[in-house]
């Protein structure tokens, strides 16, 4: 196959046209980012950081009951929208594969967990609670009425809500529990 003169001219033309383009001056490419926010259309719910006690405000972006984003609440007078590394990671406390979603039960001496229905477990706990309470209840000690359940400890938490703490105290005291504590002895 011979390349004819005409063919060559065509090829040369194409190459030189390309080259001419290649020699154009460089214009800075401009990119207009106008993407929608991933939080678009999500409900903004004011919540609080669950870690330390500064009490930073957080805004949860919720769509269809699911958390899509969680960041600082800019209108909060203490935190002013700011969060620390823990606070900024709060999203992952809720959206996390490792989370427990079913009741786990470990039988005496067993070496593995079993999944159980919530209501069954709650009823079983109530039965044991009652049995232990009934067995260890001290109504009178040295003649004095003391109404004390010595056999159960209720360890609450400084990470739970006020309302929950109040319920712990109300239920535990009514059951006679004195070993009612949380981790922070001050």
């Amino acid at each position: 196959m011979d390349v004819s003169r005409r063919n060559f001219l065509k090829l040369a033309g194409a190459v030189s046209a390309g080259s001419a383009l290649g020699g154009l001056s460089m214009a800075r490419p401009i990119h207009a980012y106008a993407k929608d926010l991933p939080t678009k259309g999500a409900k903004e719910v004011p919540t609080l950081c669950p870690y330390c006690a500064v009490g930073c405000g957080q805004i949860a972006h919720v769509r269809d009951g699911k958390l899509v984003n969680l960041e600082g609440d800019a209108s909060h007078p203490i935190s002013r929208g700011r969060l620390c590394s823990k606070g900024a990671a709060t999203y992952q406390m809720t959206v996390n594969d490792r989370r427990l979603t079913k009741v786990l039960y470990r039988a005496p001496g067993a070496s593995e967990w079993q999944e159980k229905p919530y209501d069954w477990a709650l009823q079983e706990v109530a039965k044991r609670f009652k049995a232990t309470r009934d067995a260890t209840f001290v109504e009178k000690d040295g003649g004095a009425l003391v109404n004390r359940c010595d056999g159960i400890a209720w360890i609450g938490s400084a990470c739970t809500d006020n309302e929950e703490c109040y319920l712990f105290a109300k239920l535990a005291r009514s059951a006679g529990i004195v070993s009612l504590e949380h981790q922070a002895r001050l």
Partner: protein
Amino acid sequence: MPKLAMFVDVTKCVGCRACTVACKQWNKLPMDKTHFTGSYQNLPDLTPTTYRLVTFKEEPFGGSVSWHLLSHSCFHCNDAPCVKACPVPGAMTQSADKGYVAVDRKKCIGCKYCVTACPWGIPKYESKSEVVAKCTFCAERVENNLTTACAKSCPTGAIAFGDRDGLLAAAKKRVEASKKIFPKAQIYGPGAYGGKGTNVFYLLKEEPSFYGLPPEPVASAALGLWKDVLRPLTGWGIGATVIGALIHYLAKGPADYEEKGEGHGRS
């Protein structure tokens, strides 16, 4: 002129790394596997899934010790080398009005020119997805009038976000105040690239080299030679060769050898 900027004041940084996590949260970036090697830092470098890193460095200082905490990420340079190097239209670009430099993951082909071009080595190549990743300046947040995630979360205000001129003025004030305690305190970034500067700049307590930063960030000479010298010449070079051949052909014509159509055995 770009309008938005971030100003990182290392004298205010407490190294809490809220910036790192807030960035991961907003961008939903996965964790990197890390191991303790002797310092709080644990994350050795930026990665395709870590856009913002705090470095920890200890130095003896006036009978006590100084703990240098530096939260760093993309500098979002004006006339950015990464943008200059990028061969794909729209893959690595700079916003004309806001000034940030961002990768479009859909357009990025993973050629890694930007990895090489960046004076700080900020863009990181992710082999799995074959794209380069780096701080986006929270482009979609910024375009929707929100603060960048890192600046918003910074507890002590060490990362400030806002109007570039305003932040530059604030930085100048801060550097004067800081010099009383840290004599070598300086602003880093606005002077880069012969004054074109970066859109993320720092108040450093020490010389940039102390933090492992290039003292005067410039695009490499090689990149300049390539893009500013070789590239405009390319068209001319190849064109001239072709045209030369053409002229040669027209002027001199083909070699005057003609096939005779008969045997040319040696006689």
